[in-house]
């Protein structure tokens, strides 16, 4: 009786899958970069003294939170060129994926960053002003370091989620791991081995990352003089 498993197909297509895995990592890095910068800007805008900026930032965050990343990505890839004219705007699959996943991540980063900033007792800010610190010095030396410590576990967890979500980029033909795996399946008819190998790739990266996250979280909390609750 022929065995159900035949992992020789994975060995045979290893270079192709490894390249796709590398593209998954690159895609995730871009998404994290866009999401972190965008999220920080949105968090700061939400606390701006200028009401229109606050409203615009809150509206953007709410919209991005309401919209599934997959829908946003497909919309950017297919609909945006139709609206603006394909000659003027035609995003590649990679660009659409980075933009959509990055914007979705930015909304979560903005939420976490704002919660982190607002968790700092206002008395600490008053104390800083009463000691002569400027608004920027107070943000930089008093608020940001503490807000980051409080918000970063949630933000890094979102990074890991973004990494796992990168597989949806296969829908707009980004040659990442799942897309490459589908190509291999089309040629070999071995979905069991290919999907298992893809699952394995994600597990061997996310499980150690999660463990590292918990470890660093505990150490940072103590090093900052803030007790772990």
């Amino acid at each position, binding site marked *: 009786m022929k065995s159900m498993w035949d992992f020789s197909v994975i060995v045979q297509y290893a270079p192709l899958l490894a390249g796709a895995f590398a593209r998954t990592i690159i895609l995730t890095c871009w998404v994290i970069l866009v999401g972190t910068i965008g999220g920080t800007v949105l968090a700061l805008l939400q606390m701006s003294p200028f009401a229109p900026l606050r409203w615009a930032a809150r509206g953007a965050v709410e919209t991005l939170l309401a919209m599934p990343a997959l829908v946003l990505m497909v919309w950017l890839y297919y609909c945006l060129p139709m609206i603006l004219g394909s000659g003027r705007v035609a995003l590649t699959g990679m660009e659409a994926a980075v933009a959509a996943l990055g914007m979705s991540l930015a909304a979560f980063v903005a939420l976490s960053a704002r919660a982190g900033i607002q968790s700092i*007792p206002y*008395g*600490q800010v*008053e*104390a*800083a*002003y*009463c*000691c*002569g*610190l*400027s608004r920027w*010095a107070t943000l930089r*030396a*008093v608020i940001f*370091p*503490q807000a980051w*410590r409080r918000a970063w576990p949630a933000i890094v967890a979102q990074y890991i989620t973004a990494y796992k979500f990168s597989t949806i980029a296969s829908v707009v033909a980004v040659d990442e791991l799942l897309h490459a795996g589908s190509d291999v399946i089309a040629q070999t008819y071995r979905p069991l081995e290919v999907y298992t190998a893809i699952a394995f790739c994600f597990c061997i990266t996310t499980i150690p990352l999660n463990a590292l996250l918990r470890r660093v979280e505990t150490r940072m909390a103590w090093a*900052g*003089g*803030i*007790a772990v609750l």
Partner: protein
Amino acid sequence: MSSAISVDSLSKRHGDAAVLVDVTLSIEVGEFVVVRGPSGSGKTTLLRCLALLERIDAGEILYGERVMMRPGTQPHPRDAFGHGVAVVFQDLYLWPHLSVFDNVILPLRNQYSRKLANDMAWRALETTGIAMKSREYPIALSGGQRQRLALARVLALRPSILLLDEVTANLDPTTARSILMLLGEMHLAGTTIVLVSHTRLPLDNYAELIVSGGRWVKRRI
């Protein structure tokens, strides 16, 4: 004697509750004033008004001859610092992510050279007796040591007017006495001190600000 801080017909409400009603007082340069009264009498609100941290509903607050606050105006809390006013809050509001030394040197770094800021921070830590804890974080300090750190933070800035809210509350008598002695030394060195306390303090040569007949009155002890 000239006036360091004066308040003219100050009123302040929190919602429907009138906290301060038509308060008029003057704190002279170099004076040690204890604001005493039961909980809820408006001591902390008065101190926060003097520090320009609260909006007021009527009257005005002057630093020297200069009007700093009127109804409808909200000066930045840094304006008080610019006039040599420093505040120690009841809750201290130390910066928990910074070591003892960094808590003291952070405000100095903005204004002085690295070496001078370093020297000033060490001097303040030694004066308040917590130099040996300079590498610790506030969470590792006892209540008395935290009070000292809060004092060191403002002492290093060499304020001419020091506003303190219940700095000896919740401290054992020995620690409270040593902090009061430290304040006494600052007073002798010429610092104007306004200290809020709900209890009578073992001090000499000070003025007391109390509520009598519904009005804040100052009397010399």
